[in-house]
C-alpha cells in the first residue's frame, strides 16, 4: 500500500498539531495527577527502605554505594513517568475498531503521526517530573553529577525513549495479525521493569544474568542513561554506550518499518 502512494514533500506542521492535540486530550481526561505523583513517591519510599535494609546488613558493592543506588532509583522512577507510557496504544486501538483506515487517507506518514501523538502525550506527562522531584527531595537525597554528565544523560535518555517507542510500536503492530495484544503488552511492561534495570540496577545482577540482560534492547531504555547518571559508565565509556543505544534505535526502527509495511498491505478490518 505505501509503495503506491506518491512521495509528498515533508511538512512538520501536521505533526506539531497532532502532538499538541494529544497534550490537550491528556489534560482533559485519562490523566490523574495525584495518582501518578503518589505512585512515584510510594515506590521511591519502598525502594529507599529496601536498599537501606540490604546495605545495612551486607557488604556494599564498591561501584554503587547506598547514596548512588537511591539516586539511581529516584531518577529511574522519574524517567518511568515518561517511559512507562505506551505511546502507540492508539495504533492498537485504531486497528481494533477499524478507524485506522481513515488514517491511511490522511496526507501524512501514519507511523510518524503516531510518533507525534505519542510524544505529545509523553511531554504532558513529563510535566509531572517537576512536582514529583520536589516532593521526592523531601525524603531522599539525589546526587547531582557534573554538567557534562547531565547533558550526556539527557542524550542517552532520548535514545532510550526512541528504543522504548519502537518496542511499543512493534508490539502494537502485532495487532495487524492477532488483534489482541493487551495481555502481551502487560507482560512486556513487567519484563522491561526488571530486565531494563528500572527496579534493580543491572550491574548488581548475578554475573551470568548480566551477560544476557546487557545484550537485550531493554538495557538501552533505562539502564544506560541511569548508569551514565550515577557514574558507573565513566566518560571514556560514553561513546560506546550511546553507540549501542543508537544501534538499537535504528535496528528496531528498521524492523518496525518492515512490520508496518507488511501489516499495512494485509490490513483486515473486523466488522463494520
Amino acid at each position, binding site marked *: 500500500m505505501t509503495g503506491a502512494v506518491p512521495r509528498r514533500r515533508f511538512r512538520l506542521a501536521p505533526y506539531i498539531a497532532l502532538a499538541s492535540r494529544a497534550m490537550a486530550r491528556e489534560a482533559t481526561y485519562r490523566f490523574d495527577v495525584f495518582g501518578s505523583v503518589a505512585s512515584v513517591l510510594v515506590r521511591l519510599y519502598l525502594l529507599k527502605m529496601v536498599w*537501606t535494609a540490604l546495605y545495612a546488613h551486607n557488604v556494599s558493592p564498591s561501584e554503587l554505594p547506598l547514596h548512588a543506588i537511591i539516586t539511581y532509583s529516584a531518577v529511574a522512577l522519574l524517567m518511568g513517568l515518561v517511559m512507562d507510557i505506551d505511546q502507540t496504544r492508539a495504533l492498537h486501538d485504531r486497528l481494533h475498531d477499524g478507524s485506522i483506515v481513515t488514517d491511511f487517507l490522511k496526507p501524512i506518514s501514519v507511523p510518524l503521526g503516531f510518533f507525534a501523538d505519542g510524544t505529545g502525550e509523553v511531554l504532558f506527562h513529563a510535566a509531572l517530573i517537576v512536582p514529583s522531584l520536589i516532593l521526592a527531595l523531601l525524603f531522599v537525597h539525589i546526587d547531582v553529577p557534573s554538567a557534562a554528565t547531565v547533558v550526556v544523560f539527557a542524550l542517552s535518555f532520548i535514545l532510550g525513549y526512541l528504543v522504548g517507542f519502537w518496542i511499543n510500536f512493534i508490539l502494537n503492530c502485532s495487532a495487524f495479525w492477532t488483534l489482541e495484544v493487551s495481555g502481551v503488552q502487560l507482560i512486556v511492561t513487567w519484563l522491561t521493569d526488571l530486565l531494563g534495570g528500572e527496579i534493580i540496577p543491572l550491574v548488581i545482577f548475578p554475573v551470568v544474568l548480566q551477560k544476557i540482560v546487557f545484550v537485550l534492547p531493554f538495557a538501552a531504555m533505562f539502564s544506560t542513561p541511569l548508569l551514565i547518571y550515577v557514574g558507573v559508565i565513566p566518560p571514556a565509556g560514553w561513546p560506546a554506550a550511546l553507540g549501542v543505544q543508537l544501534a538499537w534505535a535504528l535496528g528496531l526502527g528498521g524492523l518496525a518499518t518492515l512490520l508496518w509495511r507488511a501489516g499495512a498491505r494485509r490490513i483486515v478490518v473486523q466488522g463494520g
Partner: protein
Amino acid sequence: MMPSRIGRMLRVYREYWRINILTTLEYRANFLVWFGFTFIYHGSALAALWIMLTRFPSMNGWDFRQMAFLYALWMVAHALHNTFFSSVGDVPDHIRDGEFDRLLVRPLDTLFQTIATPGQVFPDELILALVTFVAACIYSGVHVDPVFVVFVPLIAIGGALIDLALNLAISTTAVWFVRVDALRWIVVQLEQEFTRYPLGIYSRAVRILLTFICPFAFINYYPATYFLGKTDGALGLPPIVGLLTPAIGIVFVALAYVFWRFGLDRYQSVGH
C-alpha cells in the same frame, strides 16, 4: 436469614461459576495470554527478590528461602481473593456507568450480586499459587506440624478476607467520590509490593499502618514470622499474633460491610 434464601443464593452462585468456566473455555487464547501474564507477574517478582538476595544475602535477617515463603503465603491469599472476590473492585466502574442501579432493584443482597456477577474468572492463579506455596514450603524448610496444617488454610482465607475488606472499603468510597483510582492504586501498592519484604525494614508509621489500618502484614509477615521462628517482631508483638489472621480478616470484613451498608444508604445514582 431463611434457609430457602440461602439455598437460592447457593444456586445462583453455582450458576455463576458454571458461566465463568464456560466463558473461559470459549476464549481460550485470551485465557492463555492472561495465564502467561499471571505467571510472569509472580515470576518476575520472585526473580527480583532472588537477584537482590543473591547480591545481598540477608534482608533484616531474612534470606531468600524465607522471603520465598513470605511471598508464597501472600500469593495464596491474594489468589484466593482474586478468584472469589475480585469483582468487588468493579463497583466504582458500575457506579460510574449506571450499571450499579440494576443490582439495587433486584431481590438479592447487593454485595452478593456484586460478588456473583459473572466475569471471566478461572482458578488458574489459585492453582499456580498453591503449587508455588508447596514448593516454597519444601524450599524454605519451614517446620510443618499440626498447627501449620490447621492454621495455614485459615490464614490464607483470613488474608483473602483482609484483601476483600480493603477492596470493599475503597469501592464504597466511590459512592461519594466517583473516581477512586488513585486511592485504590496506593492501597494496591501497599498490598502487593510492601508485603514482599519483612515489615521491619519500614519506618514505624508504615509498620503501624500495615498492622492496624490496612493490616496487610497479617496476610503473610506475622504468620511467616511465627512459622519460620523469626524473632524480628516489627512492633514488639509476640510471634503468636501470626495466628490471629483469620480473626482479623473476619473483623475487617465486618467493619467494611458496615461501611458498605452505610454507603448504600447514602447512594445517589450518577443519573443516566
